[in-house]
């Protein structure tokens, strides 16, 4: 993430993860290009699309990374989620296994990236409600427990896609602003501390102060 000096431009990296055939690529294509292709081929090599949006007067560029879903390609995951600000963890509401896979990703991301990364758990294919195998309550409860957002989408019928990406962006934006505020607070505290200990160790405090900038 980077921002300009006035704090109005943000560049967020978002990675899509989830089992094969849950609709990751379809969600990105719907969101960025408003297209849907039922015959689309499986993703083997991760791809990338940009989406520019304005939110609360901020100019935001979302760099959306779409990844391969098959279990085999899990080994490549770290290459792609590294330095992500947000992750969209997708499952298919008709496929219980795909929801379990989301749980695996949550564990891995929290372990590798901590709470730095904003998560949204997405139940896709909501148009197939009659074949639902993942309970909405259960999914929502789980999302809440792991501090993730939860959305239901249908890339096919264009339902919930825009809202989902927007909510994730809002969360990343809030987190980024909170982080900046905290950093400024820390700098403030450090300079105060410098004032109080300035008599004892001028050199070392000066150095630590530089380090924190």
């Amino acid at each position, binding site marked *: *993430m*980077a921002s*300009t000096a006035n704090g109005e*431009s943000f*560049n967020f*990296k978002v990675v899509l993860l989830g089992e*094969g*055939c849950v609709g990751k690529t379809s969600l990105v294509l719907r969101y960025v290009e408003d297209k849907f292709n039922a*015959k*689309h*081929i*499986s993703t*083997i*090599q*991760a*791809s*990338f*699309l*940009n989406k520019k949006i304005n939110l609360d007067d901020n100019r935001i*560029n979302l*760099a959306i990374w779409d990844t*391969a879903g*098959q*279990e*085999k*390609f*899990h*080994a*490549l995951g770290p*290459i*792609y989620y590294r*330095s992500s600000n947000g992750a969209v963890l997708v499952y298919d509401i008709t496929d219980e296994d795909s929801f379990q896979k989301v749980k695996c990703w949550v564990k891995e991301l929290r372990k590798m990236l901590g709470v730095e990364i904003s998560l949204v758990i997405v139940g896709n294919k909501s148009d197939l409600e009659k074949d639902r195998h993942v309970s909405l309550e259960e999914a929502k409860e789980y999302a809440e427990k792991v501090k993730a957002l939860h959305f239901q989408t249908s890339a096919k019928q264009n339902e919930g896609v825009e809202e989902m990406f927007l909510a994730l962006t809002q969360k990343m934006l809030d987190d980024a602003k909170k982080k900046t505020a905290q950093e400024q607070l820390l700098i403030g505290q450090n300079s105060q501390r410098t004032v109080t200990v300035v008599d004892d160790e001028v050199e070392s405090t000066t150095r630590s102060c530089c380090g924190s900038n």
Partner: protein
Amino acid sequence: MAKSSYSKVDEYGFERPENFNYESYDAFMSEYMGILTRRAQRWNALERGIFKSPSILKRFIRKGIPIDRRRDVWMRISGADNMKQNSPYTYAYMKKQIHNKSIIETIKIDLPRTFPDNIFFISNETLPDMLFGVLATFAHQNKEVGYCQGLNYIAGLLLLATKDEETSFWLLKTIVDQILPQYYISTMTGLLTDLDVLDDLIYKYEPVVSRHIKAIEVPSLGVSKDLLTDTLETISYWLILFDIGMPWAMGTTKWFICIFAEVLPTETVYRIWDCLFYEGSKVIFRVAIALIRLHKQDILKARELGELMMCFKVMRNNEAVIDCHQFMKDVFKLSGNLSKNSIQKLREKYKK
């Protein structure tokens, strides 16, 4: 091969891209048809003699195996024939062992997603069945690999070239078990290693390209001196907008996993496979370096990840890549050390 300069699909049934340049393709094809005829005559004239001398064989293969001989020559030079002779089980027997529901289901999901715009896969009902047979039989007899996406494209192209299910199975097994070991297992260690080997080679062969891609990768930390000497405006442009990069995996996973299937034009892929079956996986790195070299200017022009990704995406439309005969000449003209041994040493260095 049918002359297809006016057809919307290529000789292997694949749709041509929208902006396909038929004129330059026609020029290439009229020359290539002559080359194909001449090569076929040479193979016919020498026949068994070709296989007696490894150096003649290598030269003949690099110039392209005649289309009607591919099936038999691939089986012979890759060792697939030997594998088949020494196997305790026949293909028919192994095919009868298909039972695992989860494997069957995963493969069936991918059948309609394999070459959905290839006219042979759409119109020929037996082709998807044959593809299923090859993939499912393979998955059951190699439990460590099972089914891995990407194998569908390899098997698909094998079927289009050999038109034979059993041959395609043995060739696929040779590729996965012997030519590209550790690529398709769950840790993908072979692939991860080879991505690092490629990174190393590009750094040696095309340091500017390597720096450019890495400068894009971590601008706030890795801005190279070349960039710093650029105008201040450019630097702030980099620093503000881009702190995302292209891992080599993003541009080249398919180069390795699909051995250029779904990446390059079909005939070019087959010409690469001709060499791969005889000379082994080191050929992939030669092709990779040649491709990077060929697109060097476009890559260097890319200012951000999206543009860079686009360079990799459109390589199949490059006329210099469609002209497979000249392309393969360039691939083997690359000087420097790309021998089996030096690739092996690099693989040891980056072993996972």
